[in-house]
């Protein structure tokens, strides 16, 4: 176990370095820079600003300096929102995105698993078809459309929830629903498939033959096995959802990380873009490791190597 984790850690460091290097050179290969503005700067002034951010130095030198400071977890100031450092920006946005993500994921899991189990137990009935249609729609409908419909219905037609903003639990309901809906759809389909697969296995028949109650068979014996595909889906899904969603954050005006992702790229805010890419890599890596570990607990046949 410890050996497994140590190996994973070593790979993560290597991956981070590759991601850093790749992102560093890719970012600088695209035209424009953080100080391109419609109002053109005097060349001397521009050079002075560039000097402040070491952009005047040769690329390899910038690379070495930034790699060194990134290793010390200091990504420097943002080049566009220059009152803030990258660390401050991530510290401000991450809790918001994480809160939203955890709630959306809990909602998606609860709804998806229950729907999936019910659909599997009543397979080939109208309940099953109805639920799976709903799940497919949940996956297919784009976030912004769902959000717009929810705003029209629950803000203006029935004034239950506020239109946007961050601060009270009420303000979270609509964004959590819109963010979680497609994941709920996926999880429902995966659970149903997993359940159908497991329910036809011999050990389930044995459990039933021994006279266990249907509820005990499903929850205790079938569900664990049926969860494997869901769990492997959860790793990358959680990394995505925890690092924010551009569309939901923009429509509901939530100060999460998602908006930073896109804007730092379009505005060539190199340090912020780099910081976010690295944070995303770490989260994805950690969650995938957790998922791999959880297999061992869910399926006794899996050995960690």
């Amino acid at each position, binding site marked *: 176990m410890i050996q497994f984790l140590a190996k994973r850690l070593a790979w993560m460091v290597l991956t981070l370095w590759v991601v850093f290097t790749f992102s560093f050179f890719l970012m600088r290969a*695209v*035209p*424009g*820079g953080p100080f*391109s*503005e*419609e*109002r*053109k*700067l*005097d*060349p*001397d*002034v521009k*050079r*002075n600003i560039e000097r*402040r951010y070491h952009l*005047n130095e040769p690329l390899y030198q910038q690379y070495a300096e930034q790699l060194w400071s990134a290793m010390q977890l200091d990504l420097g*100031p943002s080049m*566009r*929102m*220059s*009152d*803030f*450092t990258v660390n*401050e*920006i991530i510290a*401000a*946005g991450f809790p918001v995105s994480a*809160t939203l993500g*955890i*709630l959306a*994921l*809990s909602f998606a*899991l609860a709804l998806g698993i229950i729907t999936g189990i019910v659909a599997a137990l009543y397979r080939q009935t109208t309940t099953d078809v109805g639920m799976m249609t709903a799940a497919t729609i949940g996956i297919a409908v784009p976030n912004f459309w769902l959000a717009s419909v929810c705003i029209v219905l629950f803000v*203006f037609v029935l004034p239950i929830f*506020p*239109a*946007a*903003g961050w*601060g*009270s*639990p009420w303000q*979270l309901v609509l964004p959590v629903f819109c963010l979680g809906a497609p994941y709920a759809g996926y999880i429902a389909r995966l659970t149903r498939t997993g359940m159908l697969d497991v329910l036809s296995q011999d050990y389930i028949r044995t459990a039933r033959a021994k006279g266990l109650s249907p509820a005990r068979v499903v929850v205790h014996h079938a569900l*664990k096995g049926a969860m494997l595909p869901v769990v492997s889906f959860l790793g990358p899904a959680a990394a995505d959802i925890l690092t924010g969603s551009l569309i939901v954050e*923009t*429509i*509901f*005006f939530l*100060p*999460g990380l998602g*908006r930073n992702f896109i804007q730092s790229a*379009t*505005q*060539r805010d190199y340090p912020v873009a780099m910081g976010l890419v690295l944070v995303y890599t770490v989260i994805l890596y950690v969650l995938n490791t957790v998922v791999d570990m*959880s297999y*061992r*607990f*869910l399926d*006794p046949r899996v050995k960690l190597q």
Partner: protein
Amino acid sequence: MYRPGRTLFPYLALAAVGLALVWSTTFSTLPQADFTFINGTELKSIDPARVTGVPEGRIVGALLEGLYRPDPKTLQPLPGMAVQHDLSSDRKTYTFHLRSNALWSDGTRVTAEDFRWSWQRMLHPETGSEYASLLGECVVGADQYHRGAVKVGNRVEIELEDRPNPAEPFPTGTILRSKVLAIDKPPEPKIPKGTSEDDEDKIKDAWKAKWQYTVEIDGQRQKYCKQPPAGDAQIKKCRQVLLDFSEVGIKAPDPATFEVTLLNPTPYFIYLAQFFPLCPVQRACVEKYGYPNWTKAGNIVTNGAYRLEFRRFRDRIRMRKSSNYWDAEHVQINVADALAVESPATGLNMYLDNQVEWTEAPPSAVIPELENRIDYLAKPSLAIYFYRMNVTQKPLDNMLVRRALNLAVNKESLCKNLLRAGQQPALSFVPPGLPGYEPASAGEYNIDKAQDLLRQAGFPGGQGLDRIEILFNGDGGDHRDIAQKIGSDWEKNLGVRVGYKGIEWNSYLAAVRQLSYSVSRNGWTGDYPDPNTFLGLFVSNGEQNSTGWKNPRYDQLIADAAREVDAKKRLQMFHDAERILMDEMPVLPVYSYVSVNMVKPYVKGFYPNAQDLHPLRDLSIDAAERRKYFQAKGTP
């Protein structure tokens, strides 16, 4: 085999989710602000010397106050930190008299020295202010100081390489003052053909860093250089060699007197005195905390109507009325929140849901449904949407083709059917509405005349004409719709083949700058109510020209206008210059912008105006009307 982990794991996972749920729902709910408004994007900074945008301007203008402040109705200067000014008989020296009761939020007095230091800081090359050219263009010596241009015989200030913190943008190292006796320059490097503008600047920059300045300090001749040659101990290293700031026409002879000497009589200078980038900052605060820490809520010292209470990144800025402000008794709103809402649709939703009192620029698709409401306030603004034409490329090198293209665009229909927010078709480059100025017209929509011009140019019915490509930033959205409308007019009326290319903002800027486009869309907002802010763009080699167009007579007229004392003659010169611009048509004006604001009817003191300026300190809320408004809506 029994493994505790196997049974525990699901419960652990559930507990984690439960904890997260609890954690995520325990937010501190903020007390509601008295006035909340949508402020567009997150600010680049709140340092007045670093910002240019409208959202930044609103916050800087609430926290800091300049010499004057704009009247919310007329935009004419009202007393701010200065009570009044005297103008010398040659109209070149402004002497501002500062009020004696102006205080910083820490209780110290605002003095003329604060302004002198702040303006010097803004002009210092390391500050990198995008608006430094505003002062550079009109104040004696400001441009030389800003660019570090020094000649033999000039008095200079030499900053040594001994800053306590080299990353600080403002000089804190030892400064020596002296007169330049000689400048030794190494031979100028040859710039190979095909070098990009950027690389050319870099080569020149490296060359200038090797210049050796001979000065006399304490009776001793000494050479200073930014990059002294290795091994020569005689030449000392320095960080900056700048014109001595005492040579610049910005002076503070006593705490209550601030004196600015201009190169030319500049009638619009008085508007600059109320422009937010020229607001003062407190030297003690900036030097104590350094950038960016001095801008943090606990540290910043302000002199405006509001103090900064806190900033939440990409969320809100909370401001609270400052008790030290000289006119605090007339500031009505105690606590104001500025929200960094980027999506116009979200802004409108929050406005309609009564979460905010003021939002701007609702999405154009819903304007027909909003425009008859009493809280819909539209006003033509001092900004123009236009197409640049690259005159160095065929077929746009032909003036007749450019004019034909302009006459073949039905701007009226574009504004009425596509834009719909009350935008005005632009017949001139300078938007209408500047007092005393008669814009020069480029001619109205006229298909016959356009076809005739094209025939004269040698392309009857568009035959033999290369395909014209319209470049714009961002794919989809308004810019593409507008381009397609204009392109279809060209195809239909002139038989020109048109292509469309939407690219991402930075690539677009690079393309425009390097003249690798044929037609590109642009916008320009006037910084002050004077034709110079528009017509000054297109002088030959102007930083913003980007069309390849040059006309010596145009340059002469703009330069003459700057020196002209007689206001009427001056405006006539601008008119003549615009006549040339519209005849030769390197730019095709499309429409002049309209600013749209939606403001709750119980907010008082909000006036639509040409610069779309709405100082927070002049707004107020009518509590009785507010109550009535919400009773009518049936919500609290």
